[in-house]
């Protein structure tokens, strides 16, 4: 500290913060610079909506991957959102504070498990289970959705817990004093009062699910086709980039960058939606 002085430390921190932000910006700009010209040159409609992806023949329609990403993500939300919100509500409303003090950090620790581990469990346990009990190849939309649904739980649970805890106690008392049970109070008053925070948590979870790569590559099967059922194999946008970037050159490579641009746009939209939900909550207080 002495060496730099208060001023120096401040400048150093500012410099670090600034370089981190500029690194992010540079990455985004780089992806856009590499990908955008391709989208314009190839034709946005053809790129986004055509269903054949065949780099050898110069065909770059990413529609199947978009559909796959949407299916897998929606499936993950179907698994993760109700489970995560229910879990958060249970922990905040029905479990003593002491227990909560142990459980919440544990849940946040789950967020740190590498996605390859989730993928591994999906391949070893879930996919065989699906194959033997429901049929199909096992590596499928369903497997991807289930694994992602679990992976986004920590995000949904911990943000939902924060917003449920922020609900004023007077609402709960008012409800209980009218003869509501704790369970009725939770789903009729507390959860609706925490709505915007919960929605934000779900949108952020959705962003994670769309962007997740390793686990989906391992469990979703990676076939480039529009899935006919949840038991079909699919390849998501992220998986497509990760699988082909290693050897892609020329137009193929540009097409992958363009896929990245599409992802970037989707995630930016989701994050600003989440931001809007959170700000709405702040404004209400």
């Amino acid at each position, binding site marked *: 500290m002495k060496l730099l002085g208060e001023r120096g430390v401040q400048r150093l921190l500012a410099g670090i913060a600034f370089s981190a932000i500029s690194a992010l910006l540079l990455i985004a700009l780089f992806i856009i610079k590499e990908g955008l010209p391709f989208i314009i040159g190839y034709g946005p409609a053809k790129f986004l909506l055509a269903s054949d992806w065949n780099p050898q023949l110069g065909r770059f329609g990413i529609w199947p991957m978009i559909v796959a990403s949407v299916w897998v993500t929606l499936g993950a939300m179907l698994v993760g959102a109700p489970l995560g919100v229910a879990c958060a509500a249970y922990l905040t409303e029905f479990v003593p504070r002491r227990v909560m003090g142990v459980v919440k950090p544990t849940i946040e620790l789950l967020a740190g498990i590498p996605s390859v581990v989730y993928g591994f469990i999906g391949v070893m346990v879930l996919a065989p289970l699906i194959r033997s009990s429901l049929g199909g190849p096992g590596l499928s939309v369903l497997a991807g959705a289930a694994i992602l649904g679990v992976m986004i739980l920590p995000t949904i649970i911990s943000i939902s817990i924060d917003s449920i805890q922020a609900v004023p106690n007077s609402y709960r*008392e008012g409800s*209980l*004093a009218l*003869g509501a049970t704790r369970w009725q109070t939770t789903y009729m008053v507390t959860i609706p009062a925490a709505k915007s925070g919960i929605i934000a948590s779900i949108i952020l979870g959705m962003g994670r699910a769309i962007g997740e790569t390793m686990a989906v590559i391992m469990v979703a099967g990676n076939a480039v086709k529009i899935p006919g059922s949840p038991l079909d194999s699919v390849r998501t946008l992220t998986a497509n980039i990760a699988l082909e970037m290693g050897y892609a050159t020329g137009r193929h490579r540009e097409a992958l960058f363009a896929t990245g641009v599409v992802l970037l746009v989707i995630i930016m939209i989701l994050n600003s939606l989440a931001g809007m939900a959170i700000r709405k909550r702040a404004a209400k207080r």
Partner: protein
Amino acid sequence: MSNKIEIHKLDLHYGKFQALKAVDMPIRERSITALIGPSGCGKSTLLRCLNRMNDLIAGVKVKGRVLLDGQDIYAPGVEVPELRKRVGMVFQRPNPFPLSVYDNVAYGLRVAGLRTRARTAEIVEKSLKGAWLWENLKDRLDSPALELPLDQQQRLCIARLLAVEPEVILMDEPCSALDPIATMKVEELMMELKKDYTIVIVTHNMQQAARVSEYSGYMLLGDMVEFGLTANIFTNPADPRTQDYITGRYG
């Protein structure tokens, strides 16, 4: 008139701290009973015993009996939500739910499982009328309750309570967040409500107790020092400690 509630030898501990000491008190049916006493003497605690809101606080131990129509509400097997439907509560700070006016009043009905629209609308109207809010709010049933002025919020909380048709209404300093005019309105409303309901009110305001209540209990450090007709307590208290408080030498 008979006793709606009888409190017998009620002890309450918050952990090791004894907040109520062998409190005895009757509460007459269809009348207003006031609990008075200096800050921290246990008025709110006693009030919250009557609908078992204290159950929500960890480490609370209650001993003694509270009879509602002769039945001990602390007996094993008592359904607490059912009890709270019979003994409703209005809080110090108005606490309407972040819902519309209509949904606030309909809340208790939904909780009780009433599903028919027409019947709900009927009861909502009746309850708002009962709390003298219908004329003000009948065109704004969809507006958010939290946007109402405070006194309307408090009366909305009363309307919300009337909808579940309680027998007893507990009020913990219901006017302390209100200005004098709004306070008067709520007091008038209480005088009207006592025709149908048994009311217990905690108040810091001596004049208010004198104006609205028939019976008063004076509490000090967890003891019920004196209980009786308000007129007697205020003009001719039996206990010198009550005398000190009434004449303003205390609190």
